[in-house]
């Protein structure tokens, strides 16, 4: 490896955003014919570093060399000219155009869509993609859109590909397909950089890992010579334990009883079909399912945010009295004395207000308190300070707008606020999506603490390994129906996986 010339050498790269130091004298080497996993905690500067390589930002200091010649990349076009292509987390495609049109968009060459389609097919064949150049983007699944993005950069002649958390939006099957394609590209001599938080993906796919911490390069090693524990320790900078606890539930009692819940979307599609289950206090009920199987609708129905068609959602108080939650909005649910906390999937679009600062976001839940016409700003400020201190939120201060924080810190702020109200029911949707491994374990720990305090937790997750380790019981959804409820202890990934794709799993065969 050492005798090979690096495709890219980044040296002493520094980038500041105002007072925030995103990259600090950062190094990185990228080689052809190799898949490099770029690891680091949320906010450690991985994406910023790659954005500088792909021309989105220009470094304040430092140099980039390609094949030992210094290059200046000041626009995405420069990056393409140097063969660098980046696939961002959020796709940059025009919905109403076809794949071929999107791929050729912005290129100076003469527009000949037939020739474009032919070349796209050629690229697809070479690396094993499946994409129809004439298909419109709005007709495509997330994974197909991602494929178009990859083909787009290959079409422009990229031989250094950067993928920013490409698997966050993919199903396990789609992930396998993507990995196969990436391996083909590596074997073809291309340099591939992948940013991811999922350790098993790093181990399965990459040849080498490079680790960033606080914007600095802390080291790299061959994947086969390391393990998840070592990589995590390097990322965090101190030894961390990677165990998820599962204390036994103490005195579980029915808290939420859902019966025959049916939800139809605005377009009339059945999202939840006759769903029934009970969530107990002091217990974590995991919800598994392929994404879009009705998880979002289920949680939003309980939270009073989703118009429903039928069924009932009963809240059972400690003294045994029951309250019907169906058809009530969040305010009337709160007025019933039901303390329900909800950590939604869309953190900045629903759970928090990105442009407001931490203490104003804390106020979202509490601002109605008291009779005064004016808001009480002291209590939320104190709460914000407590959350920052207890959950180790990395922020310049409580007056920083939430949107400036990195994903993991945004989630800590949201979870911190939601559990501050001492809930009896905690709903979480993809609580660790996009979070680095250390933040993820912080969140698991917080959820477990709630469970110990007797909270009924409903945890919608996508990582089956975690669901199996964390949940006391697992509710498996398949196409809006309950495929089964299994105890978390003793369930296998295979069984739950089968139930996710087929109602009842194995039993359906019998």
């Amino acid at each position: 490896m050492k005798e090979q010339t690096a495709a890219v050498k980044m040296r002493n790269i520094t980038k500041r955003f105002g007072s925030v130091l995103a990259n600090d004298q950062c190094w990185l080497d990228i080689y052809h014919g190799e898949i490099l996993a770029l690891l680091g905690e949320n906010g450690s500067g991985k994406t910023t570093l790659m954005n500088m390589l792909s021309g989105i930002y220009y470094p304040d200091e430092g140099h980039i060399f390609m094949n030992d010649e210094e290059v200046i990349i000041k626009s995405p076009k420069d990056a393409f000219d140097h063969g660098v292509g980046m696939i961002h987390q959020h796709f940059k495609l025009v919905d109403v155009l076809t794949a071929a049109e999107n791929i050729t968009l912005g290129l100076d060459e003469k527009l000949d869509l037939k020739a474009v389609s032919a070349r796209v097919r050629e690229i697809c064949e070479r690396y094993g993609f499946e994409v129809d150049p004439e298909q419109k983007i709005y007709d495509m699944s997330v994974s197909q859109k991602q494929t178009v993005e990859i083909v787009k950069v290959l079409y422009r002649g990229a031989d250094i590909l950067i993928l920013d958390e490409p698997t966050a939006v993919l199903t396990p099957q789609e992930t396998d397909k993507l990995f196969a394609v990436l391996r083909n590209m590596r074997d073809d001599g291309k340099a591939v950089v992948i940013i991811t938080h999922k350790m098993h993906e790093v181990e399965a796919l990459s040849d080498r890992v490079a680790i960033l911490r606080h914007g600095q390069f802390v080291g790299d090693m061959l994947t086969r010579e390391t393990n998840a524990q070592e990589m995590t320790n390097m990322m965090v900078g101190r030894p961390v334990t990677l165990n998820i606890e599962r204390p036994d539930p103490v005195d579980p009692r029915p808290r939420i009883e859902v019966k025959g819940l049916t939800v139809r979307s605005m377009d009339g599609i059945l999202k939840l079909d006759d769903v029934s289950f009970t969530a107990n206090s002091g217990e974590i009920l995991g919800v598994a399912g392929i994404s879009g199987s009705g998880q979002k609708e289920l949680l939003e129905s309980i939270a009073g945010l989703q118009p429903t068609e039928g069924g009932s959602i009963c809240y059972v108080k400690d003294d045994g009295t029951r309250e019907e939650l169906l058809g009530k909005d969040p305010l009337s649910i709160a007025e019933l004395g039901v303390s329900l906390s909800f950590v939604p999937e869309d953190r900045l679009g629903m759970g928090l207000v990105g442009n407001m600062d931490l203490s104003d976001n804390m106020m979202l839940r509490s601002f109605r308190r008291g009779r005064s016409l004016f808001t009480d700003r002291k209590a939320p400020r104190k709460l914000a300070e407590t959350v920052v201190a207890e959950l180790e939120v990395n922020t310049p201060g409580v007056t920083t707008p939430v949107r400036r924080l990195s994903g993991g810190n945004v989630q800590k702020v949201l979870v911190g606020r939601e559990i501050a109200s001492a809930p009896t029911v905690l709903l979480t949707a993809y609580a660790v999506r996009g979070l680095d491994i250390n933040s993820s374990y912080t969140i698991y720990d917080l959820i477990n603490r709630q469970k110990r305090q007797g909270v009924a937790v409903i945890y919608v997750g996508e990582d089956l390994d975690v669901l199996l380790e964390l949940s006391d019981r697992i509710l498996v959804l398949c196409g809006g129906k309950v495929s089964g409820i299994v105890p978390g202890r003793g369930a296998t990934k295979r069984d739950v996986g089968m139930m996710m794709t087929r109602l009842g799993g194995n039993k359906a065969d019998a």
Partner: protein
Amino acid sequence: MHKQTREPLVHIVKRDSLPWYRAWAIRAVAIVLALLLCAIVTTLCTGENPLQVYATILRGAVGTRRKVWILLQDLAILLCISLAVTPAFKMRFWNIGAEGQTLAGALASAACMLLLGDRLPNGVLLALICLAGIAAGAIWGVIPAVFKARWNTNETLFTLMMNYVAAQIVAYYVIVWESPKGSGNVGIINPTTEAGWFPQIGGNKYLLSVLVAAALTIFVYFYLNYSKHGYEIAVVGESERTARYVGIKVERVVIRTMLLSGALCGLAGVLLVAGTNHTINSTLAGGQGFTAVMVSWLAKFNPIAMIFTSLLLVFMSRGASEVSTVFGLNQSFSSILTGIIIFFIIGCEFFISYKLSFRKSGRKEGDAANA
């Protein structure tokens, strides 16, 4: 070992938030630069001495005691209307119907003066004028809000169209009430009895508007920044889904805020009719409903800053009329100058958020290349 390549000459770097005095220093520099450019344009286009033109603008705006008071009156009305639209804007409800809401308020108060004048004790009449004017403005404002809340209609078009409806209704009543007949205007209402005229404070007919505007500025400032309503408005404006998630009734906030917005516009109409003009016509609002949009945006919806932005616009427009009479220049010339100044003021915000980083000359070659 490697080819020397050149850094780009400039690149853009995001700044830390600046201390307020440096931000204002940048704004001051922007205004000075704007005045310099205005001077060049003046000399090139008209051949006049720019200093004389500036002096004339200054004289036209604040040259005499009377002119100062007229400036303050114009400022007060513009500020009132700007304050009125601000809560709606903060909610991202684009109320560009302030013109119509002001006219509705003006029409209601004129109607009270004409129909009830001399029949009621003046105190009762004045209270009634205020109530009617405010209510009319509120109703005119709440109609688009109800449609928005119920059927999600486009509030920009709706409020805009309501302006024309209001103007036509006023035009109709001007004919109904015209005096003397055939003149095509209403004339001064109750000229002898002065029924329904607001009393002059300290013998000055403009002072009342100024005091009302000052009180409103403080009210809107506290309402938006410290009240629960103001907080709800901000949340709804930033994200409706978040608002619903925390149990804010978005429809109710939209309707309530537009009631307030319309009511404040109506109050501006009352001030115009019962306070200063004592008559009504369909151009009474004089486009201030639209100027208010600019005042509010320039001040980034901050009521205190709106005092300065509205002052700038009123100052320039008062100066403009003087320039056009003294130099025989078209009124539009002053609009050009105002345009240049506003361009610089908006443009300088870029330099407050970002700074340009220039290529360092004499940079050591390849200082890190061999690392």
